[in-house]
């Protein structure tokens, strides 16, 4: 297909051909089934491009599918972990941490590309539940808070999480909720306290999200130092940190 023919076809489809040219083209069209096919193809491609509503609906259906599937998964994990056999045992805590790490890793592998470093590399963390089956008010609060986080009710989550001072998991999701609601200063403070605490399983995550807070709040120097540290470590965010470093 040469450019001239493409031009003719497009002009024909756009009603841009004048009387003589139009007649000639129509005559050609009647005799040349190949050309006819080509015109049909071009016209269908145009329709497909303009068929935005269906594409939008498909994306919405896709989002619903993912959201509800995750919820089911979360519900299932809560169920498993609520069984008495796991209650308050160290093994449960370790298992939970492994699940969380796995899910974090998995969700990061699916990062969508969009514009801007922050949106490119930040992805909301799925709160998959891992609450020990305690019945103390604190435990219940935590469970509720994580559900709120999962349902993207970040303000609720913050409300419930900010009093859970000694729980690192709570702190982690508190930091993420601050980040989600653009309370960057508070997010930074929270992630820093996780890092300072040292002996916990969320240091890598906290470092990563802290660096994103710096990127988002345009503190390039701080972001750089931290990202360099991450890219020199064995962090699961190593490669991403390297990529951002190349851009800033």
């Amino acid at each position, binding site marked *: 297909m040469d450019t001239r023919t*493409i031009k003719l076809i497009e002009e024909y489809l756009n009603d841009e051909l004048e009387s003589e040219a139009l007649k000639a083209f129509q005559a050609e069209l009647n005799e040349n089934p190949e050309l006819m096919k080509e015109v049909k*193809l071009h016209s269908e*491609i*145009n329709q*497909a*491009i*303009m068929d935005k509503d*269906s594409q939008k609906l498909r994306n*919405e259906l896709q989002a619903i*599918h993912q959201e509800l599937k995750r919820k089911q998964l979360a519900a299932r994990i809560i169920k498993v972990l609520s069984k008495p056999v796991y209650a308050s045992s160290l093994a449960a805590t370790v298992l939970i941490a492994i699940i969380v790490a796995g899910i974090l890793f998995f969700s990061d592998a699916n990062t969508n590309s969009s514009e801007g470093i922050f949106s490119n590399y930040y992805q909301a963390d799925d709160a998959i539940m891992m609450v020990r089956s305690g019945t103390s008010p604190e435990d219940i609060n935590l469970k509720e808070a994580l559900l709120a986080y999962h349902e993207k009710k970040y303000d609720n989550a913050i409300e419930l999480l900010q009093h859970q001072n000694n729980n690192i998991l709570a702190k982690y999701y508190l930091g993420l909720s601050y980040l989600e609601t653009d309370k960057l200063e508070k997010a930074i403070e929270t992630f820093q306290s996780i890092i300072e605490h040292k002996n916990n399983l969320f240091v890598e995550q906290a470092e990563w999200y802290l660096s994103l807070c710096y990127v988002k709040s345009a503190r390039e120097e701080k972001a750089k130092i931290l990202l360099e540290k991450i890219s020199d470590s064995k962090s699961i965010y190593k490669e991403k940190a390297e990529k951002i470093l190349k851009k800033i």
Partner: protein
Amino acid sequence: MREYSVEELLEGIRQHNTDVLKFIYRSYYPQIQHLVVTNSGNDDDAQDIYQDALIVIYKKILKNEIQLVDCSFGTYLYSICKLLWLKQLEKKKQNNDFYPEDDVIVDDNEELLQEFEQMEKFKLFQKHFRSLRKDCRKVLELSLEKVPLKKIAEIMGYKSDKYAKKRKYQCKEKLVDNIKKDPKFKEFI
């Protein structure tokens, strides 16, 4: 979870109403998944078929062609999914002993299949459209929206409307080429 009447469901689909779409998913997706997974498909196939079927229904709603005579929305959706999945299996030429049973009650199968065929084709075209460069996509969209070339040149920051026109043809040519090169395209000729 609240219940919806058939009319509410159809109207909800027309408006892309999230609550309605979630209700439909929760109420009917498990059966459809079961149907596909127990008939040589996997979860992804099930999801594709479910989405395809809803979009076929959506298009019919927009064209005012939908008729649900004496059957529930769930039955209607299920039978469309079954029909479409059958068609997919046929295409893949898989041996299977999955035939539509007498309970396929969709009366205008031919029409539905045509709509499905066109949707598959559009999906392929849209995929290639999305993989074009951003400026190409924009130029093509603008010209299909009948924005004058002069204005297009202005929006895109091109020197002249002549260049905008040239760019438009180049982009279209690229798109048509890419589509023709796709092995899947042969299925549609």
